[in-house]
């Protein structure tokens, strides 16, 4: 069947077998191997991507069901060579060991933070209920998500995007008079 899917900002038109899972389409046809498969049952969450802005498990969907929709994968998060704040927070809080669960954890964390801008410990754990990690014991993952929430607060963007007085004054002509 013919499908047209927007993945990470690029529209792809492809002929696919109806039985092709979305995750296999992403990995094998589009070479987006950042999204991984960890189970056969929809339990582990490693394959989490966003479909039209909401998190879904891409192993639980057929590629044909994504026809006409927008998919965002872990590979579509970085901007201009800079990691997404949630990616940065996972990095600096040591929220991964083997890293297999990480793409799914990050995609689900972003979904969670869209609903809850300042989640407490319990809210993070509930929000990541569908993502299993065999290594970390979750402590640093929870910490990373909370840290990411702080990094993503209004006005917490990268330095060059902040409108502090200092920043503005530094733009004033220097030594003119």
């Amino acid at each position, binding site marked *: *069947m013919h499908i047209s899917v927007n993945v990470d900002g690029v529209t792809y038109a492809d002929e696919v*077998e*109806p*039985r092709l*899972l979305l995750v*296999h389409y992403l990995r094998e046809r589009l070479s987006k191997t950042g999204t991984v498969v960890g189970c*056969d*049952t*929809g*339990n582990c*969450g490693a394959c*989490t991507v966003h*479909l039209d802005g*909401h*998190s*879904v*498990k891409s*192993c*639980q*969907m*057929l590629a*044909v*069901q994504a*026809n006409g929709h927008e998919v965002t994968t872990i590979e579509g998060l970085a901007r201009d060579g800079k990691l997404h704040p949630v990616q940065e927070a996972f990095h600096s809080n040591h929220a991964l060991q083997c890293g297999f669960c990480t793409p799914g954890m990050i995609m*689900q964390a972003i*979904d*969670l933070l869209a609903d809850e801008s300042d989640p407490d410990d319990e809210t993070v754990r509930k*929000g990541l*209920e*569908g*993502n*299993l990690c065999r290594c970390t014991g979750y402590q640093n993952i929870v910490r990373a998500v909370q840290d990411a929430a702080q990094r993503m607060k209004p006005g917490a963007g990268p330095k060059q995007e902040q409108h502090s007085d200092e920043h503005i004054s530094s733009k004033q002509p220097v030594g003119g008079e």
Partner: protein
Amino acid sequence: MIPAEFKYMFPSTVDEAVRMLAEEGEDAKVIAGGQSLVPVLRMRLAAPTALIDIGGLTELTGVRDDGDSLLIGAMTTHYEVQRDHLVQDHALLLRLVTDTIADPQIRHRGTFGGSLCHADPAGDLLAPVLALDAVMIIAGPSGRREVPAAEFFVDYFTTALAPDEILLDVRVPKYTGWGAHYEKLNRVAQAWSIVAVAAAVQVRDGAISAARVGLTNVGSGPLRATEVEAALVGQQASAEAISEAALRASSGDGYKDNLARVLTGRALTAAVAG
């Protein structure tokens, strides 16, 4: 694993979907959110020859006010049910139950109707739908029919739906102002219920004027605890009345019987409180 081959069809109206199901014969299946069906296909527990995707039937999505009842479209996702104001105001029990289903990703795709049609005895929506006297509105080749929940759930993974029928809407009477609670026992890593109890109670001047109690995963389908309900009506909403009534929750299985009683007591206590 990779599913066996099938033909994929994407109808744009209910009539078209019903026609496709009839034409494709017994081995065709409806796919809604796919959250139960896709794993079944992947594990090759089933190999339908055709899948009719009802994801394009927008008229099956959303909750409508229909006077004394709500009409919940079969394709309404768990995520939408959780956030729907009509459900919150008139069928609070369904929101509380839906909050406990699976995880956020599954709730974004999985549907209200799909859960009922799949009829997994551990599925959380079956018992509350039964206890709330909901009615299934079904379309088939010979038109529409209505089936009360009590006749809809037939056995393990079996409903009254014929292979060429589609669930369209679920009519749920309004329970405005009723207290509700879902008490669920499950392992941490899996949201599926070992046993759970759905309770809704109407309290007037400190006394229980009406009660609905449904049990999840105590048999081949949902059970309604009618004896518990009867024992509550007319009683003061007190701890004694609740523990007395909860003793009547029964499943016919020793371990689960005990669980059913304990969880019924807890569910009623919380439902009466709010």
